[in-house]
């Protein structure tokens, strides 16, 4: 902190800005260094579990009637005939070459699967996150603004329902109501029948359709995403609305709000500036983690809406006991989770001047 004050004395704004960026980067670096051992530990855990638990993956991949030499060949291919530590070592070496191993479910490299399916999931989660943030902000702010009054009580009950009803129940309900009874939205898949999928450039079909200039396809994909994204977002939305509300109620009692009020700042400014920002800081952390957690709930929602994404791929490799696939799914989600974690910390450090600089 003293260091910071010294730097602040240098009257150039640029220097200060660079310092702030450097402090944040240093912070990010620290976080990355911390998370790497965790991810290695995670990979060791799931890797070992996948090799030692009962059930012969080679036999499963070959099928029940396959001759013995075929099973042996697959076993060799998966390196299951080697000692455990050697298997892990080679897996790690392959990983650094971008190879996650051979999938006995899709009969090709897991890396190819990840590249193929991940964008669809991220795209869905992105829309769900938009719903989540928008809904949580709206509900939370209304609730906090009218704390202990009717709107607050209504939001409170809604939030309880949102938290308690599992995402797969929302998914089925929406499918039943908005796709079957009132056919407003398509019930499953990514494209309507007869729609030509855009040529693959980024893997994100929304972006690809825009690149290809297929605006109809873009709308069609978006149309298919509404129900699953909404079903996915509701739980987190309810959770975050509650946290934003709690933050606001907490901030309302603070003396610093009394102070700006005492000095004649109009209510609207007080609310939008001096109450909202401090209330959102604690919510950002939870919101970020909730968005990352959507990856978990996406497993059920992608299954219900037959969304061709990474989570549905995850379920398929799990049901087929595809060991390389399972390890890859866990690891990829772990990495995404870690990135989300660090991003959230950066956003919070940006919003709250106390964080990051104190440690710097």
């Amino acid at each position, binding site marked *: 902190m003293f260091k910071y004050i010294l730097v602040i004395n240098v009257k150039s704004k640029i220097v200060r800005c660079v310092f702030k960026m450097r402090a944040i980067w240093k912070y990010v670096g620290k976080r990355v260094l911390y*998370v790497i*051992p*965790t*991810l290695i*530990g*995670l990979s060791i*855990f*799931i890797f070992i*579990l*996948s090799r030692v*638990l*009962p*059930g012969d993956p080679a036999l499963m991949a070959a099928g029940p009637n396959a001759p013995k030499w075929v099973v042996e060949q697959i076993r060799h291919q998966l390196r299951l005939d080697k000692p455990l530590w050697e298997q892990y070592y080679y897996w790690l070496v392959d990983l650094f070459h971008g190879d996650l191993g051979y999938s006995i479910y899709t009969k090709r490299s897991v890396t190819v699967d990840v590249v193929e399916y991940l964008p669809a999931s991220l795209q869905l989660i992105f829309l769900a996150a938009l719903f989540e943030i928008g809904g949580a902000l709206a509900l939370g702010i209304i609730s906090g603004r009218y704390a202990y009054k009717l709107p607050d009580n209504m939001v*409170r*009950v809604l939030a*309880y*329902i949102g*938290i*308690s*009803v*599992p995402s*797969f*129940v929302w998914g*089925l*309900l929406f*499918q*039943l109501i908005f796709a*079957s*009874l009132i056919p407003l939205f398509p019930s499953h898949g990514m494209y309507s029948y007869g729609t030509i999928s855009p040529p693959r450039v980024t893997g994100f079909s929304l972006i690809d359709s825009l690149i290809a200039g297929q605006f109809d396809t873009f709308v069609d994909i978006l149309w298919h995403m509404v129900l699953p994204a909404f079903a996915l977002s509701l739980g987190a939305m309810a959770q975050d609305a509650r946290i934003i509300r709690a933050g606001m109620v907490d901030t309302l009692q603070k003396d610093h709000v009394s102070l700006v009020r005492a000095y004649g700042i109009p209510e609207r400014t007080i609310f939008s500036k001096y109450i909202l920002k401090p209330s959102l800081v604690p919510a950002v952390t939870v919101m970020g983690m909730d968005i*990352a*957690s959507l*990856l*978990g*709930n996406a*497993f*059920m929602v992608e*299954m*219900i809406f037959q969304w061709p994404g990474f989570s549905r791929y*995850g*379920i398929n490799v*799990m*049901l087929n*006991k595809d*060991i390389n696939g*399972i390890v890859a*799914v*866990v690891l990829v*989600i*772990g990495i995404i*989770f*870690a990135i989300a974690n660090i991003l959230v910390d950066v956003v919070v450090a940006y919003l709250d001047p106390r964080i990051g600089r104190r440690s710097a």
Partner: protein
Amino acid sequence: MSRATILSEWWKTLELKKKWYNFSRSPLSLIGLIISLSTIILAIFAPWIAPYPEHAGFYTDFEHANLPPSWQHLFGTDEFGRDVLSRTIFGFRYSLMMAAVVLTLVVPAGVILGLIAGYYRERWIGKLIMRISDIFIAVPPLVLALSVCSLLTPSAFHAMMAVSLMWWPWYTRLLYNVTSSIKEEYFVYAAKVTGASSAHIMFKEIFPNAMGAVLTKITLDVGWVILLGASLSFVGLGAQPPTPDLGTMVSDGAKFLPDYWWISMFPALAISYIILGFNLLGDGIKDAFEG
């Protein structure tokens, strides 16, 4: 000091009377209590309450398959002609058992590990425990639980084990935080100076301070564990048919949407009901302890 007196002392620190007063003031908490109690009663007395208890397991009656809700079958019947209401009532058993087994496994383990990690925060043992707990919260619990379940053979028991494996770190972290902050307090020093053993300090001096937080977390967790269990069986990696597990019933019935909506929708609502009950109850208890 005997175990019984330790327990009664822990009990006293909770000041339950005052807390009940706080709790009973909120209508939502009371609703939560009623819902939770109702599911517990239904689960315990399922064989006597369910109209067709034999429908819980293997049972086929294709003549009465896929009947819509009626007075005979309030929730209709499924594709094997089994009464959905009866199976739903039995389903509460599996959901509650899931929560009970997971929490009885997880809480003591997590608490002890957390106490050790917090108490020996500077030593390698504390750091190791926390690092290992980091691994298990590096991915959403559902993803890791699903993977572990799939690597084991899917079954209700394995689902419980997998969820337990994902859940202990939260208690460890809770106790770690409490312990690290209390460790420097004077009463802990005082105990140390008088020559109390580390175990005594951990369980008699530090743990009582975390009791309220742990109990609150347990009640809040019941809903989450049930949700996680239902999700596992919904995906097909938990309890297997014909177990009347609510998640399994929803996913089996989902094939018959939208025509035979009752097969999946009633169990789905039942899951929401039980989770809602325990969420309300947990929040009520939390408010009672904090307010």
